């Protein structure tokens, strides 16, 4: 079985935010909710690099471990999804997540946040694949259609890689050999530590 992973090649990311836009458009993500974002460190000084980040679909996911209503599940492909019908919007997954992936449609006094929303690796949710209910709550289910996540597909420099972890690692390994840079599997140490 495939084990889906994201990898962002920081040598290639040009901070165009195409992935962010593609994601918003594909899933009709509401205002204020950002399933993916691009962060630039050392902005304006030598060594500046950008990285696109979303839910990394962690092994032994922290979000799933703390959820009071236990609404997360991991698909056979290693994708971490959640059930919005069960979510109570407590914010605990946001406290636990290393990557700041969980998002809330509201942010008001008295802990009002609304149902959590996050990157689904374009794999929808517990509803029937491709159903209207699934689209409304979680966005398009591209995985069920045999497609990869739209963010990586749309990436203009192919900095953002999505797919089976081994294949992604192979592509990346080839790149670093060609350009003889040091490998930096960004975020993998945190997200997939439990794998090894």
């Amino acid at each position: 079985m495939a084990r889906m992973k994201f990898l962002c090649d920081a040598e290639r990311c040009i901070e165009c935010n195409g992935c962010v836009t593609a994601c918003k458009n594909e899933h009709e993500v509401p205002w204020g909710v950002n399933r993916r974002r691009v962060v630039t460190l050392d902005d304006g000084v030598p060594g500046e690099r950008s990285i696109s980040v979303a839910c990394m679909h962690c092994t032994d996911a922290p979000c799933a471990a703390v959820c009071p209503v236990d609404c997360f599940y991991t698909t056979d492909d290693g994708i971490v999804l959640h059930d919005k019908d069960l979510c109570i919007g407590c914010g605990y997954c946001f406290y636990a997540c290393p990557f700041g992936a969980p998002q809330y449609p509201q942010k008001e006094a008295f802990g009002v946040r609304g149902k959590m929303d996050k990157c689904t690796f374009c794999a929808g949710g517990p509803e029937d694949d491709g159903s209207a209910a699934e689209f409304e709550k979680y966005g398009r289910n591209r995985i069920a259609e045999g497609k990869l996540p739209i963010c990586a597909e749309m990436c203009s420099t192919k900095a953002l890689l999505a797919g089976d972890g081994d294949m992604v690692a192979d592509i990346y390994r080839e790149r670093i050999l060609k350009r003889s840079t040091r490998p930096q599997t960004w975020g993998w140490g945190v997200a997939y530590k439990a794998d090894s």
Partner: protein
Amino acid sequence: MAEQANTTLNRRDSRRSKRVLFLTLALLLLGTLALPLTGYLVTGVSSVEAAAAQQDASSNPRADYWREVREGNQGVTTTQGPEAGILIQNGGQNWRQIRQGPVTTYGAIGLGVVILMMVIFHVVVGRAKLETRTGKTITRWSMLDRVLHWYVAILFIILAITGISLLFGREFLIPVLGKEGFAAFAALAKPVHDYLSLFFTAGITIMLLKWIGQNIPNAADVRWILSGGGYFGGKHEPAGFVNGGEKVWYWILFIGSTAMIGSGIFLLFPNLDWTREAMQNANIIHGISGLLVIAGSIGHIYLGTIGNEGTLEGMVTGEVDEQWAKQHHALWYEEVKGSTSSAGGAARPSPAAPHE
């Protein structure tokens, strides 16, 4: 090659996670005091400043860069959202381990032990009965005191049940109610806890302040506590209006609910843009202090109802039998009797007055 890089990363990670765990524990201690300041710390380290400083300090910008990422430095992003500029926030993993580990485990064991202790106490020591009933009563609690007590008590019980449902529901309630059933309950418990906490905060603040005078410890309390309140045989050291045990409960409640309210505010107002670190620490403080006051309340409820005959009626009707006063609060009884004979009728002297 990528794998190789991963293993070195992992080794570095495990060393780092120990260090981070230690740091978090230290932070917890400073917790309540330092929390409001953490926001400044994070926003204070602007990326450019940090980068420039780093540039001076060392020679390898690429290595510095990845260290910055791992240490959770703030970058620049067009995305708006809480701490959106931070790529990796390391505290969450420690928070998870503390909440899902010690807080949940020792919390559940602790509450179980307290309940068991009450049962054993009841079997071994049993109910402290009144020797006789004189039929004459003394006024102990004014209407205002009683209203305050029950207002706070009812809210406390609702907050405690809804609160521990969030903490333990996954372990104890999902197996019984099923995921859908529990989620439906939790979806109600959460807003109930969130909104009632305000009414609780107002009530307990007034109650604790009103009763603080009569709960200042004195030498008689120490003697009372050392004698075990007379529950375990031996002499029942005379107590004033409030005995040593009750004062201990007062101060547990005082400290516990201060921590409870202080940390609750961080959890209650996500709109104030607290950092995740602040909310993680607040949750741990809230959980621990919540369990502490719940444990205390179990003892308090037992002793106030089944444990001692005649105590509950004092808080319900405001009146206690003279025999009850003699048996449990001898110093207060003498004081009341003294003042009745001289002042003729004033049943309850100011509780703030010295009891010796």
